[in-house]
């Protein structure tokens, strides 16, 4: 008898999913655990190397780097979640609408998508963030404005191909209304690749947000945000490399964990993998 865990892809998924959850919980309770106030400047203690009191050292304003790195986790993780959630919802909604109903709705939205896609992603985000002014919320808005197009395109093409599938024809012959067909057949059958895209996007979005902050277009000082911290620390690279090492490693590890999670989601939702499940469980087909 095959069990859920017989497949290594599923084990990987469970492991990385658990890691992500732990990371999220940790980032939420971090402010309660850190030894120092992440915002408290103390110029007398500026640029102290990692020590007993300051495990990661202090920055040029004498703030505890350890406390700042730990409390910064929540900003990076949850702004990326919100960003992916927003673009996933909006993009998918518009894509399904365009794909299923076609006609003028489709033309209208797809022209917008074409235009937005004609901008190199980050370029427009930089411009929008520059217009709107700094702030993590503005950075999320700037990136969301251009990134939903990916989901719109993907869901539209999924819907277009599913729409021509025989089981949709059969459902229509079976007297189901359009709304029912969309809700019961089209969306459930196209959600897989979209979820994969979304979970692979979390890490990438985290990097984009941090990138904007790094450029001074995202989080505003004195917020403890990794990209911003790296920006503040980069002039001290020679004298205080810990200003680079700790936020940088935190950023890298978080992105890596979410990327691994995304990969594992792809592996278990991949149609090829699904087929192999069907083959192993549905051997009756050839019997």
């Amino acid at each position, binding site marked *: 008898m095959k069990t859920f865990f017989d497949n290594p892809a599923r084990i990987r998924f469970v492991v990385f999913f658990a890691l992500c959850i732990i990371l999220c919980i940790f980032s939420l309770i971090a402010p309660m655990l850190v030894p120092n106030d992440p915002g408290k400047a103390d110029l007398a203690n500026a640029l102290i190397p990692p020590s007993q009191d300051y495990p990661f050292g202090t920055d040029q304003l004498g703030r505890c780097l350890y406390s700042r790195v730990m409390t910064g986790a929540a900003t990076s993780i949850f702004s990326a979640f919100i960003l992916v959630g927003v673009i996933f919802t909006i993009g998918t909604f518009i894509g399904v609408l365009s794909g299923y109903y076609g006609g003028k709705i489709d033309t209208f939205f797809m022209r917008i998508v074409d235009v937005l896609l004609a901008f190199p992603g*980050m370029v427009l985000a930089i411009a929008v963030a520059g217009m709107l002014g700094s702030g993590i919320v503005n950075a999320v808005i700037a990136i969301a404005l251009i990134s939903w197009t990916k989901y719109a395109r993907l869901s539209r093409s999924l819907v277009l191909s599913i729409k021509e599938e025989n089981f949709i024809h059969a459902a229509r012959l079976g007297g189901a209304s359009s709304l029912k067909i969309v809700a019961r057949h089209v969306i459930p059958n196209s959600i897989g690749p979209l979820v994969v895209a979304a979970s692979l996007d979390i890490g990438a979005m985290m990097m984009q947000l941090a990138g904007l902050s790094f450029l001074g277009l995202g989080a505003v000082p004195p917020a403890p945000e990794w990209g911003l911290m790296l920006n503040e620390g980069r002039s001290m690279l020679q004298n205080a490399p810990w200003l680079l090492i700790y936020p940088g490693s935190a950023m890298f590890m978080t992105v890596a964990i979410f990327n691994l999670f995304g990969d594992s989601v792809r592996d278990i939702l991949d149609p090829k993998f699904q087929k192999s499940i069907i083959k192993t469980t549905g051997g009756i087909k050839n019997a």
Partner: protein
Amino acid sequence: MHLVPILIGITVLTFLLMHLSPSDPAERLLTSQGIPVSSDVLEEVRKEMGLDKPFLTQYGNWMIKIIKGDMGISYMTGRPVYDELASHMPYTVALAVISMILTLVLAMPLGVLSAVRENKLTDYFIRFLSFIGMSMPGFLTALILIYFVSLKMNLLPVLSQPGIKGILLPSITLAAAMTGKYVRQIRAVVLEEMQKEYVKGARARGIKESRILYFNVLKNSMLSIITLIGLSLGSMLGGTAIVETVFVWPGLGKLVIDAIGYRDYPLIQGYVIWMAVLFVVLNLLTDLIYRLIDPRIRLNKEVA
């Protein structure tokens, strides 16, 4: 491709962006020129700039100017935006081209090797490297490179100077992230291609494995890889902004980040349009190459 509607869309969107920005261009112009702002003067300048006219008229006038090559005067430097962009453009293009070449030189053999040695040690190692490349934010790679190559080993200057030495680190930074992504996708493309029936057909005809790989599979994989390049051009052009800023490379990205600090709207506007046009042109190029390589599309075109 519907080039004209897209170009119109680009300009409309860019103009709209400016229009909706919270600050008043007239006020910005005055302050940048050091003229004290009073409501009278402001009103006058606004009239002069046509800011009291309806949106569409403003857009029309602006558009005519753009077509003539007049993108306004930069608040930051006082020079025409057009000249400013034109003088920085070559740096960005050079950076993009070199990073792309570097990426392909690295990613092609690695991706193919990874596919050929599927699920062997080499494959795992290459995939591990590509994963690291993908999970590393560009600015972090940049800082690490500066720290080790420039500060610790003193091999290259911290701040880039125009020239080979200067462009090396920025392009390595850009290429690192892209290579990670490419290796993965090239591996997937080659693996998929090797599953196709014509490969079995070639094997059944006794054609050498190496010949199948180099003359058949790779050639056909190129088609997907070109599409891939087209798709990733955007993220690369966007990525130049960060890299140029870190290395102080005098390209368009560095220019626009400085401009944002100055709230230099005409320059930002010009940057967005230039980048979009550059992107569209590059995409057109990849599309053309694709058509040239794929006989199915090429011949169909000739028939039609």
